[in-house]
């Protein structure tokens, strides 16, 4: 919920040229508990994407890309982390997986989300390079934001 409000009320107002619009709310999907059944993850991601989209009249776009991201999540997790590592972990965080692994995990999933989102937004290949640069820059920016946010959050819980 905090994630949603932060995205809608603060981030939607930050305008770094037309090339970069970072999204923070994918963090919600990244941090869903590992033991949660996949169907619940899909439904929750749909709800998250839909409610973020309501604020900018694009709930379909956000829901579509967030659900795709949630769908890809288990595959990315099994590819990145060995079974033994994730067995007794409830949810992923920097503290448990290590900085680099978490960055990679976040980056891949955010790239999937942003790729689908921006391509579906344009819905044509006429502005291919523009869209491509936009995807890359926004993905880097979102990942940075999420890692920094996660780092701050981590510090707070350890104290």
């Amino acid at each position: 919920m905090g994630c949603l409000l932060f995205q809608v009320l603060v981030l939607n107002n930050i305008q770094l040229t037309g090339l970069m619009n970072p999204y923070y709310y994918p963090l919600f999907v990244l941090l869903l508990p590992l033991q949660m059944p996949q169907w619940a993850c899909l439904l929750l991601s749909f709800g998250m994407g839909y409610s973020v989209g309501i604020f900018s009249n694009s709930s379909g776009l956000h829901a579509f890309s967030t659900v795709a991201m949630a769908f890809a999540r288990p595959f990315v997790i099994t590819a990145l982390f060995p079974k033994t590592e994730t067995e007794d972990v409830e949810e992923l965080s920097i503290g448990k997986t290590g900085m680099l692994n978490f960055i990679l995990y976040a980056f891949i999933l955010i790239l999937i989300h942003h790729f689908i989102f921006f391509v579906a937004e344009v819905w044509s290949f006429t502005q291919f390079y523009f869209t491509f640069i936009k995807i890359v820059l926004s993905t880097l920016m979102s990942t940075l934001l999420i890692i920094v946010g996660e780092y701050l959050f981590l510090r707070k819980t350890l104290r």
Partner: protein
Amino acid sequence: MRNLFQFLFRHFQYILFFLLEIFSGVLIVKESSFHQSAYINSSNQFIGNILEKQHAIKSFIYLRKENDSLAAENARLRGEQPYSLIASRDSFRITTDSNKRPAFKYIAAQVMNNEVNKINNYIVLNKGLKNGVRKNMGVVCDKGVVGIVKDVSDDFCVVISLLNSKSKVGVRIKEGNYVSMLWEGYDATTTSIYDLPKHIKIKKNDTVFTSGESWFYPPNLMVGTVKDFELKNGKNFYDIKVKLSNDFYALNNVYIVQSLLRAQTDTLLSKIHDE
């Protein structure tokens, strides 16, 4: 039958995935059509109230700037009042001009939420059905065109910004030549015109006005200036880039245009289409 259920159960997550994606796909198509809107959008009362709270904070920060721009507009309007005109003859009288009657009424509104960096940008305003706002009214501000009202609730409305891939404004460059102005999703300060025929001479910095032919906006409202133009080999039309006079990054006070005559032209046109 049991096998079927077993199959469904085992692949439940995939089926759910496809169902959700199809549902969102339908939503995308629905939202992107010009006149139809999804069930919940930002003209919804609840969402509107949240955005209004946010606006209260934002507008406080920008208070100074807003005051300046309103004062400037007031000064300009004051200059057009009868009492600030000097008589050019010794005897005169002021009459209301019976030759003219009002064609447009304006509803002042404030921007609750403004987007500039998407492909399809929308603006939320704090006026709705209660204030007389209806679908398809134009929205302008003191420096140019803003957009067209897409959806109205009791207290709020959603405007399709000029910065929207589906927006299309009837304009003319200097005198005559009605053309249409499009936005291409790159840059919040620039729009394009592609249908001006090549036999017409234009220059850089020519002014672009609204044509007013569709009655969305009042005619002769300045929209921007010609920033750059090009005539590609073998083409019959110019590629023109227009620099908008309106700064979409700093949009706050706007006016919703109620055209008093558009209803008539609309009914006439719909009669033709029905036949």
